């Protein structure tokens, strides 16, 4: 019997400070056993438990993309015991990864559709995974227009800045980068909150347009009315939820919203599904 609690051993291959306040770092892991990488085959939108022996585990969205081989990446906000410990680890350290866990963005349903990605703050990790996946030459033709609205407090708080600005230059993706505010006279992108930028720049919905929304609760709260104004129906708004988790495989019982378990039945739900469950997230 496979033991779903046993993590794959990984080595920290690289650590990158991701934001100017140093509260986020991006960790690149390489599997100690190459065959484990195959077993860890994942889809954009899934998460994994980062597992530090003697410290604990944390559920984190996978920031690397299925089309990137040889490593997996996670961008982690320092907030609790495990994330603080992880932030103090070094390149070369050995730890574990358990997964991939949960469901993913509905890639089959999104084929031949317009996809609008809306993210705020550090909830951009699985969205990065998704964008890299869609932009991959093998996949780009499977999707119609791609729009991205991504905002952070300040330019230095945007994740994956270099990639964002590279995507900005491409003509097969429409980037709408925004910050709450900046005094940088060189800033040439949007200023303002995500919901406003969505309302002014996101495409009006037809039945072939879907929005994927990830962000802090306040952003989600005000983005929903903006999307409604643009004609998005509840089933066209796809969200990824977070709840406290331990097992990640639907057994330990804490992450439920109604009868759905965020770890196993989610984390990806449509707004239509979420509206049918108690809002306990």
């Amino acid at each position, binding site marked *: 019997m496979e033991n779903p*609690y046993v993590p794959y051993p990984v080595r920290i291959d690289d650590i990158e400070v991701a934001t100017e306040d140093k509260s986020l770092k991006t960790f690149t892991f390489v599997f100690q056993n190459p065959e484990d990488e195959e077993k860890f085959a994942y889809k954009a939108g899934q998460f994994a438990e980062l597992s530090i*022996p003697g410290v604990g*585990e944390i559920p984190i969205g996978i920031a690397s993309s299925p089309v990137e081989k040889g490593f997996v990446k996670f961008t982690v906000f320092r*907030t609790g015991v495990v*994330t603080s410990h992880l932030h103090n680890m070094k390149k070369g350290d050995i730890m*574990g990864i358990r997964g991939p866990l949960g469901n993913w963005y509905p890639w089959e349903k999104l084929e031949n559709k317009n996809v609008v990605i809306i993210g705020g703050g550090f909830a951009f990790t699985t969205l990065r995974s998704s964008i890299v996946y869609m932009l991959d030459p093998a996949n780009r033709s499977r999707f119609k227009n791609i729009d991205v609205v991504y905002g952070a407090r300040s330019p230095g708080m945007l994740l994956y800045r270099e990639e964002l600005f590279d995507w900005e230059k491409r003509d097969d993706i429409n980037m709408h980068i925004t910050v709450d505010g900046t005094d940088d006279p060189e800033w040439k992108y949007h200023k303002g909150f995500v919901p406003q930028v969505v309302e002014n720049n996101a495409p009006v919905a037809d039945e072939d347009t879907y929005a994927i929304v990830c962000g802090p609760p306040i952003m989600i709260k005000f983005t929903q009315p903006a999307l409604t104004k643009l004609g998005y129906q509840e089933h066209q708004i796809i969200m990824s939820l977070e709840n406290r988790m331990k097992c990640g495989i639907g*057994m*330990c*019982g*804490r992450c439920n919203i109604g009868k759905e378990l965020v770890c196993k039945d989610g984390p990806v739900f449509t707004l239509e599904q979420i509206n049918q469950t108690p809002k306990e997230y």
Partner: protein
Amino acid sequence: MNFITIDKKDWAGGIDRSRKTYRVFGPVQDENGCQIKPLTPDLYPLMDAGVTVMSPKSVLFPQTEKMLTATLDASREDHHIMKPVEKDDTLRVVLGIRPYDARAILLVKLNFDNPDYQDPYWCDAYAATTFVGLGVNRPGPCDFSTSTGCGPFSEEGLDVLMADLDDRYLAKILTEKGETWAGACGFDTTADAAESQALFDILRKEAEKNITASVDTDQLSEKSILDLHEAPFWDDVAFSCINCGTCTYVCPTCWCFDIQDETKHKTAVRFRNWDSCMSPLFTHHASGHNPRESKVQRVRQRFMHKLKYFVDKYDQGIMCVGCGRCVASCPVNIDIREVCTIMNNHESK
């Protein structure tokens, strides 16, 4: 199905013979009341015990259980690589388990052994365990097992069902596991099947008559989750609750757990502990946000899980076997039977 008769004079000797192949569990009296525990060679099960304080779920799902371990000694090649701890998977037998507790194990199995994931600790323990049940001749005042798909002589989840006939046990062998156990004990006095079944039926009817409490669950599956969740009665239900969590620990069907790491010297151990939805920490995010911050939300979660979410998810009735432990143990007299009735009768406005 074959029946055997076990003279009570032979009972202890049979148990002793079975100890060569089985770790034997059964009800014993300790400082905390009557509990199902491993029986040391000098101990025999208290077969006439009433409802045990704690359920036997811990035989398969210990209150605290080591799962994984790793060395943190960097000079070792496998340092920081977590591996499963070795488990004792020798056969075990639970003597005197009551039918409601046996059904509870089947309900818990839906969680630990599902098409997507199998919990190896629980599943291996389950595979190694034989359940020798004892019908309830004299149901207690809190027993409402007849209205939860169970009853005092229910066979579900058991390998052997025994009936206490004063000077002897009449045992119905229900599975191969049960037959193997009887063989290991040397119990082989066959009883007439038709006669024995008739006797079981009489005892069952007699016992069922003595169960006066019941719950109505027939409307639950038709209610909407949101209607029940938003119903106005939760404040009243939760008013007296002190969130002690006793109901979740004594419950044979509560399976929630926490996972924690500890280190001692250069060894890291990951283990799990029973957890409780009554605790605010259960759902507390690292950010400080808590989706079930208030007591009312947590009490609602417990009853909604048992009486609605589970019903909808598995279509196996309610996640309650009617043992009555939570009713008897609750320090503020919250009664799941009343809550179930309120939920079952709730009409949304």
